[in-house]
């Protein structure tokens, strides 16, 4: 007989290295035609930090995204940004880019204010133009302001450094302290169908709700969620490094170390929750790691919901479920079930 079950799992995840400084810096250079180059040490491994940092620079300077380019992760050219780890680059390097961009923005607005005969605080930069708040006709182009600055010998370049507000190491005896400047939160639901005769199970769908602060790029966030969920399911159901009794690896290729394929991956619904983080760039937080954290637990809870079997080790396999089902059948079922 096949029985369905649903399992929930909630987690939280601190952004950045635990209770230690992990600064990042960035350089933003606005060029004579109003286009812009960002230099950042942040390594993009495919997760999309180059894209997110460009969007943050463009937002800070009011430029269209297509005008911003980035050079990242070349130690002779780009400043230190720390390691791409701890879900930290959008949060930490994003802030560094924002701060660098704000320096340039201040130079721009100072000049534009003189040209437009306005107060710098009353100016807005959007879509590559600078205008007086509420009076979009009193305006000038970013490129023109850059050029007038260059004529005066002023270059539009800025640098920024950010480190998360984690003031000191955790207390060695109590662990008390502020390990992270911000947290991401998530709840996932896994729906499973279990064959009570064999223990075989199918994962029917996953719903993953992730609080990422203000999403810089929703498609990129979904990509992190979907990829993390499937990695979490690989962890939950099939992946395992196995050694022999002399410590020699037995699972040293993709024939023996199995990871999920397109045929294994279930449909995933991503729900993006945006609880703006005041210390993040424009309210953003990181989301690289959290999607891989709750999935295995949600599956375990779903299997319990379906057939009342509690799995106590990973990976969850049909054999483990079958063994537990057999055990529970050797006793009379509790009343009411």
């Amino acid at each position, binding site marked *: 007989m096949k029985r369905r079950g649903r*399992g*929930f*799992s*909630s*987690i939280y995840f*601190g952004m950045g290295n*635990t209770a230690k400084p992990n600064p990042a810096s960035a350089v933003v250079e606005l060029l004579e035609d109003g286009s812009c180059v960002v230099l950042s040490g942040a*390594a993009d491994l*495919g997760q999309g930090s*180059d894209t997110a940092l460009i*969007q943050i620079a463009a937002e800070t300077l009011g*430029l269209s*995204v297509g005008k911003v380019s980035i050079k990242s*992760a*070349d130690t*002779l050219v780009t400043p230190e940004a720390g*390691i791409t*780890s*701890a879900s930290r680059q959008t949060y930490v390097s994003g802030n560094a880019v924002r701060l660098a961009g704000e320096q340039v923005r201040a130079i721009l607005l100072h000049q534009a204010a003189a040209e437009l005969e306005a107060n710098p605080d009353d100016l807005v930069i*959007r*879509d590559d133009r600078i205008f007086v708040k509420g009076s979009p006709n009193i305006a000038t182009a970013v490129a023109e302001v850059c050029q007038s600055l260059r004529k005066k010998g002023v270059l539009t370049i800025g640098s920024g450094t950010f480190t998360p507000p984690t003031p000191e190491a*955790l207390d*060695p005896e*109590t*662990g*008390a302290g502020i*390990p992270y400047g911000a*947290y991401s*939160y998530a709840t996932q639901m896994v*729906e499973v169908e279990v064959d009570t005769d064999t223990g075989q199970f199918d994962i029917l769908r996953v*719903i993953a*709700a992730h*609080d990422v602060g203000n*999403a810089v790029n*929703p498609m990129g966030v979904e*990509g992190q969620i*979907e*990829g993390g969920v*499937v990695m979490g399911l*690989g962890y939950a159901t099939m*992946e395992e*490094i196995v050694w022999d009794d*002399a*410590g*020699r690896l037995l699972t040293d*290729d*993709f024939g023996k170390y199995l990871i999920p*394929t*397109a045929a294994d*991956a279930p449909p995933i*619904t991503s729900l993006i*929750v945006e609880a703006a983080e*005041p210390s993040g760039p424009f309210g953003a937080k990181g989301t690289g*790691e959290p999607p*891989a*954290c709750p999935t*295995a*637990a949600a599956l*375990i809870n779903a299997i319990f919901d379906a057939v009342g079997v509690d799995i106590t080790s*990973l990976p969850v396999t049909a054999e483990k479920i079958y063994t537990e089902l057999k055990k529970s059948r050797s006793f009379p079922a509790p009343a009411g079930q």
Partner: protein
Amino acid sequence: MRMNNRIIEFHVNGQPRRMAVDEDAMLLEVLREDLDLTGTKQGCGNGECGACTVLVNGQPLAACLYPAVKVHGQSVETVEGLGTRNNLHPLQRWFLKLGAVQCGFCTPGLLMSAKALLDRFPEPTPAQVREALSGNLCRCTGYQKVVEAVLAAAAEIRGKSPAGRTDVEGSGALGRSIEKVDGIPKVMGAARFAADIKRTGLLWAAMVCSPHAHATIRRIDAGAALGIEGVTAVLTARDIPGAACHGVVQKDQPFIAVDKVRYVGEPVAVVIARDERLARRAAEAVNVEYDILPAVFDPREAMKAEAARIHAGGNIMMHRKIRKGNIDEGFARADVIVERQFITQTVEHAYIEPEAALAYWEGDMLVVHCCSQGPHYQRQELALMLNLPVSRVRVIQATTGGGFGGKIDLLLQHFVALGAYITGRPVKMIWTREESIRSSTKRHAFYMKYRMGAAANGRLTAAQAEIVGNTGAYAAFGPAVITRSATMALGPYDCPHVQVDAYGVYTNTQIASAMRGFGAPQMSPCHEPLMDEIGRRCGLSPVEIRRLNMVRRGSSTVTQQVLESGIGALETLERIAAVMDADKGDL
């Protein structure tokens, strides 16, 4: 050595080719090395990952297993022939538009498998797409966006106008799903991963690895290897001019084993030779004599006083304590107490791009191109090893095919850097899949004991956890993983009395370091089933028990950090609960 003794004629992307190939050369090698079509990737060499998928007479196949001589008279299509920068193939365009590209390493293979499918079945179902792509491993995307992109491209090819995303346009730069800025080279096969970077006068490096889990090195005899024509050098720890050890948190890991090995696969020497095959063959000729020591593989055993000692300071790398409130009082106040023991396994990052690096001198600067998650950190380690000013080492991250924490630590950068430093020539190294799994880092296996208490109404009163993590032979990022696991041990819940003891323990297994989640994926299979169990005992549903205990403004975490803002925990729960309510009848 390549013999180039067979002449073959075939078409590649419509161009006729006539060339001499080695009898036992595979098509992948000919494409990548002889024709410089490096868009086709090598992920495993066993036909298991699909990164090398090309079409031969329209049929998708693994170029890594297909003898080059067999393409004589046939027509080969690679990703480079799919579209041009100004005229991308619909598959390439939709991969970008719908976010089907992340690292881009598996992308060429996915594109070619998808093209073969659409050439035969212009209107596939989602299940047919998944089936057709099931031989192409992707570790970044979870496949969903890949399937959506293939379906959209198919529709466009049939003359339909598939819907794109609605959140691309808009005011301002944020909150918009713009395409990846590094996407076009990735869908064209033009992005240069470290293995794709070439240099004239190149030498190749190969590792000599320990076959023993724990042993002292008595003698390394490189005579036979050095006697092979084309072998330039056999490097050992003695050739290192600067620091002997590296490590992101504590420097306990030799760049090359010094007098002892601590896991099977630990590098003890590095052979530098004229070509890749020769370097590997010569590595087998290096004779290392060992005195085998007792080994320990289970961290619970390794904690015992009588266990084999792996490091001079003992096997317990660290003990992280959390003490909040008074745990005895917390359990005294509990009406419901639940317990759980749980074991998680060691797992592999399994990025599809195996590690690769290339080093050379450029004037006074030692340059290293590599896959990397942290070029600045790696620069510092290389400078210490070579006794160079940090400013004279340049680490350039090549396009990197996924990392997930596995490309943080030094993996092979130091071998090519040392090789270039010593020989003065460019030195390159690419790991096979087997070398990658054997010598890269892993996610910690955890052994956990949990006990949680709650009042009859379901409010948590106490949470206690003991965590033993297998950190393997060296620390790497292990101390940070153990600390994070302690801070994440309870999950997103408010509880007044908490006690956590998290131990990181050395064993004679592969090094456990950072992997996506960093100690948190191991915790949720403990705290989440316990939350459900408390709920059942208190008559609350999974949603209700979480809603009751979840952190909110003013809550104090296990480290007594008071949360003040940006707390979306409850909303993540409520959003899913709302979906559940909406389709209650389905289950």
